[in-house]
């Protein structure tokens, strides 16, 4: 079993830096799958890094099966039978699975030897993985399974003592998530303690009987997740009771955005194939699907970053707009919240004012070729007022904003000026529960005010919770949309899995 007693770790190197982990106690018995819940910045990642041997605690002690545990390096962690699966794959995308595992096993292991070991290990747990397949061509779920087996293979005697999973279910379709759950259970049954970190309580419900909830680096509580319920767990994580999102029922109006057989070739990424779509005023249309199936290309085509081949491919309030540029479409009332906030939605090196100018430059802010800075200042203030950011930060660089503040800023900038159509692309990606709820409420309020909202997200729960209708994107094609009342996560999940 694993035991942590008062483990603390500062954010930085200096005395007096804030504590990322502040006296954390944790006990996981052998064979137990223990959940670790917390928002971004609650200390989960720091704890994972400590257990992986990537960081050392400043205070406290750790015990594994009764023996003190000091981990100077990832190699030391592996030698003690600790395996860590990070959010990102550690296997190289351009190699075959056997080659990637051979690299991970190190000390001159040949790919053929790795393939043999993979065969025996996967037979032991009843998993099937093709050693000659390129890692790049494997689905997210298969990669996650491979990572789990990698941990077992690296452990001394192929017996893991502790398995740490960082957000194991993130972005997996339900059947794949199930296969992963089964494998985690099978590994736990070999006498291994499992720590399963997650941001969303849904991810630990199925696996764990006990979870430790972290808040601001401290243990908030230890409980049974099913007994506590998602609402209570969210409250414990955020430290405040958050009201559920409210939605006003309303009737959708006329079609505002229509795609008519939109096809677009693409050199890099996914080509779009004959996409039809009707988005009406006052409704939220959700586009679900695993990332990388053409969502980014679809959003680029709608926003005008990529031009369609014919003007009639895209109608904005009935006006053929397929060949119009980004700025023209924006003037027609189309606004876009990009998925990649820091790289695409703003310029990190610029101030908030300059970033407000980024998409508001054609709103009468220029006189005699010169930018009217007083007017821009007022516009920035009004954006920041709208979303509750302190106005004295207008001259600060956006790089100093947190992820949640940044998304609020973009929300205010894009939605503050009476839009007709809003494309929200993975709007709560990487945000904590509280911040995600604010964004969700803002989108629902928009729809209630008669704005047409296109929600593109790989978070199935988000799509189902917000949308009136749902369509699924697979390999560059968009399915017929169905009313959200006539479908379920399970049905959509099967569709997603068929596509993968």
């Amino acid at each position, binding site marked *: 079993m694993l035991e942590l007693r008062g483990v603390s770790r500062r954010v930085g190197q200096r005395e007096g830096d804030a504590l990322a982990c502040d006296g954390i106690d944790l006990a996981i018995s052998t064979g137990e799958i223990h959940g670790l819940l917390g928002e971004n910045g609650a200390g989960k990642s720091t704890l994972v890094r400590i257990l992986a041997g990537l960081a050392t605690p400043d205070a406290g002690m750790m015990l594994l099966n009764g023996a003190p545990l000091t981990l100077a390096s990832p190699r030391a962690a592996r030698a003690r039978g600790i395996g860590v699966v990070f959010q990102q794959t550690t296997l190289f995308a351009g190699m075959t699975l056997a080659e990637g595992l051979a690299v991970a096993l190190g000390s001159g292991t040949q790919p053929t030897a790795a393939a043999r070991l993979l065969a025996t290990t996967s037979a032991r747990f009843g998993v099937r993985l093709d050693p000659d397949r390129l890692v790049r061509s494997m689905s997210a779920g298969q990669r996650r399974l491979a990572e789990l087996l990698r941990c077992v293979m690296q452990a001394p005697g192929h017996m893991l003592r502790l398995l740490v999973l960082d957000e194991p279910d993130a972005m997996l379709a339900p059947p794949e998530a199930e296969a992963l759950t089964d494998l985690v259970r099978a590994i736990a049954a070999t006498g291994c303690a499992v720590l399963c970190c997650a941001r969303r309580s849904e991810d630990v419900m199925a696996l764990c009987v006990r979870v430790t909830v972290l808040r601001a680096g401290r243990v908030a509580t230890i409980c049974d997740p099913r007994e506590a319920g998602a609402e209570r767990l969210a409250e414990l994580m955020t430290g405040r009771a958050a009201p559920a999102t409210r939605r006003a029922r309303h009737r959708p109006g006329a079609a505002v955005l229509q795609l008519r057989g939109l096809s677009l070739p693409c050199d890099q990424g996914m080509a779009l194939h004959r996409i039809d779509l009707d988005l009406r005023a006052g409704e939220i249309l959700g586009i679900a699907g695993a990332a990388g199936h053409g969502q980014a290309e679809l959003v680029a085509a709608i*926003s*005008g*970053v990529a031009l369609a081949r014919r003007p009639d491919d895209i109608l904005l309030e009935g006006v053929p707009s397929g060949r119009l*540029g*980004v*700025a023209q479409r*924006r003037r027609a009332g189309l606004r*876009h919240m*990009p998925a*990649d906030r820091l*790289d*695409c*939605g*703003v*310029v*990190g*090196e*610029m101030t908030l004012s*300059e970033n407000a*100018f*980024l*998409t508001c*430059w054609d709103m009468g802010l*220029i006189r005699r*070729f*010169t*930018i009217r800075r007083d007017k821009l200042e007022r516009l920035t203030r009004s954006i920041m007022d709208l979303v509750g950011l302190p106005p004295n930060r207008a001259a600060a660089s956006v790089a100093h904003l947190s992820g949640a503040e940044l998304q609020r800023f973009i929300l205010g900038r894009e939605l503050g000026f009476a839009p007709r159509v809003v494309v929200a692309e993975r709007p709560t990606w990487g945000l904590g529960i509280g911040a995600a709820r604010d964004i969700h409420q803002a989108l629902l309020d928009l729809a209630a005010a008669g704005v047409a909202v296109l929600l593109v997200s790989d978070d199935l729960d988000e799509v189902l919770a917000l949308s009136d209708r749902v369509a699924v994107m697979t390999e560059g094609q968009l399915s017929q949309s169905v009313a959200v009342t006539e479908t379920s996560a399970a049905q959509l999940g099967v569709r997603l899995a068929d596509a993968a």
Partner: protein
Amino acid sequence: MPPDPKAGLWTLVLAPLATPDGLALLVATAVPLILCGLGIAMACRANVWNLGAEGQLAFGAAAAGLVADLAGPTAGAWTMPAMLLAAAAAGLAWAAIPAVLRTRWSAPEGLVSLLLSYAAVQLLGDQRDTAGARAEPQGEAGFVLAMAAALLAWWLLARTLTGFRLRVVGLAPRAAAYAGFSTDAVVWLCLLGSGGLAGLAGAIAAGTILAPGIGQTALVAAFLGRLHPAGVVAASLLLADLSLGAARLGIGGGATLAETGVIPGLLLICLLACNRRTQTGRVANDR
């Protein structure tokens, strides 16, 4: 007896500033550097690399010489503006080639412009030397022109939509596409603008001491000036001072041109080495 380092330093750094004539020469030497450097610096802010100022300058000088020839001895008030205009147009035209290749076929504009500058010098080699003899000394007027260009460049970069587009394209190309700014338009603007300025410098530079290698020195001036117009002016003056001092050192102290060229080189290396985050942003950030 070993040479006196103090005297050497004096000759290299301060001697060019000591006399009114020396100052005039310094300014005349710095003007083409300022003009070329401004163009290069502005383009670099948009992550557009114009390494071919040398060739654009040669074309500018040749065009100015051609106009002077045509005007002949009947040179009137219009001759000088016509020469400058022709020079700018010639530099701009030569810079249009990398712009076409970049926007049409994604050819790297830095490489293309650099190679084209060798082509230009080969094509125009002889004429460039003679153009200088025909041009009049440009002293004060040239400096006023360079200062005006620097002021305009600053205003453009800091206060206008065009400058904003340029900076966004340089810092975050994806954000530029998201905002609706065309990268191609910015590439065109940067190459034509810096080419035109280099051509202009060609008309003015003809006959000054720096004549060969102005394009390369201007590149140093642009980076030494941290890609800021005011910085470019200061760096150009410094580099002009050092090159004039080096010439004196060569005449009086027996140092070769290669030896004295070490000083500006060291300056640039020191600056770049301690420069963890340059104005162009991404290049340095992706360590």
